[in-house]
């Protein structure tokens, strides 16, 4: 009888020790949703058409410059719109687990040559998040550089 009570107490203690952290996590999660830190939509620029300057630097002082108009602009959507407006191709792969496109080729310049890859800068700041996740504002300047990896 005493053994059964002891096993039950031990079992209950284990359940409580697992449930408490779970409850804390749920409460933190709910609070993050309430303050808007966790949302179901990407933060997008809700505005009229955004005019953006797009520079594509192939290296060796070979730079193309474009003016691109697009709504709800992200770095990727600006590049995509430019490829349509100015008729050049882009190679990309979409990663579901990161919800981002990875750009491996712009205008037939493909990564891997001399350990160079396509990386973007927004207003001279190195892009640290995926191109699809980085919103762009009116008059921003995006630069895609073909260079050795910074990251």
């Amino acid at each position: 009888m005493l053994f059964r009570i002891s096993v039950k107490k031990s079992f209950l203690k284990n359940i409580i020790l697992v449930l408490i952290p779970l409850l804390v996590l749920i409460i933190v999660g709910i609070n993050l949703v309430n303050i808007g830190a966790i949302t179901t939509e990407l933060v997008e620029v809700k505005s009229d058409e955004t005019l953006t300057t797009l520079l594509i630097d192939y290296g060796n002082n070979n730079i193309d410059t474009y003016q691109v108009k697009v709504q709800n602009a992200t770095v990727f959507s600006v590049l995509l719109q430019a490829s349509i407006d100015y008729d050049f191709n882009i190679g990309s792969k979409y990663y579901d687990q990161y919800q981002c496109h990875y750009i491996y080729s712009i205008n037939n310049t493909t990564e891997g040559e001399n350990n160079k890859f396509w990386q973007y800068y927004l207003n001279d700041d190195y892009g640290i998040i995926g191109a699809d996740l980085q919103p762009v504002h009116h008059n921003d300047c995006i630069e895609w550089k073909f260079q050795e990896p910074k990251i």
Partner: protein
Amino acid sequence: MFEIIKNHIGKICIASFLIFIGVIGRLVLIDLLPSSPSLYITLNGITQPVLMMDMFFLIATISIISGMLLKSYYIFIIPISIMFITDLIIGNSYILLFTWSGFAMIGLISYVLKIKNKFTMQKIPLIFGASISSVLLYDLWTNFGCWLGWYPPTLSGLTVCFTLAIPFMLWHLLSTTAAITFIVIPLIYLKEQRLINIDHVVNPLEKHISIAMITVIMFLSIFLFII
């Protein structure tokens, strides 16, 4: 030599199996991961998906199992063998020093639980707590390495580095907790039913050598930056 192999044949087979599963899993199963859910988190002005998925949980679980079932050398050999073979194929950078030693650290924590005889059904909260702590330690250690190599050496750089790491950290915690629930806990149950045997005999020399090797790699990781 033959005697040594004969005495350790069971452990060598388990180690080989774990390495095989780890290599195949890391190379093949990545394409089977589900899509990241449409939930986004905004911290420090950066918006990212809440979860970013990778195969960390597979190597972490194998590290925990190697610490639980095998002798101390294997906590070092198994995860590093998996990472070495797969990194030869996938490719890697200097960060491998941090990731390899991070997985060995997870194996070490599991090994400590084993030698203290904590792998029992009564100690499940302790097992979850130790596993979650080892995952957090791994993430802290590897992201520290990322900051050293890839971000400005300022507090702002450190903050950005760890902010970007949060979706990965959340996935690591979630996936490893699930893997422990469905793989490690059943193994503990089998051990309590005496269907598998966990050897609690500890050779002090083996233990100290394993801890020393992990510590050396960790110091080497930082030392390479200083020089």
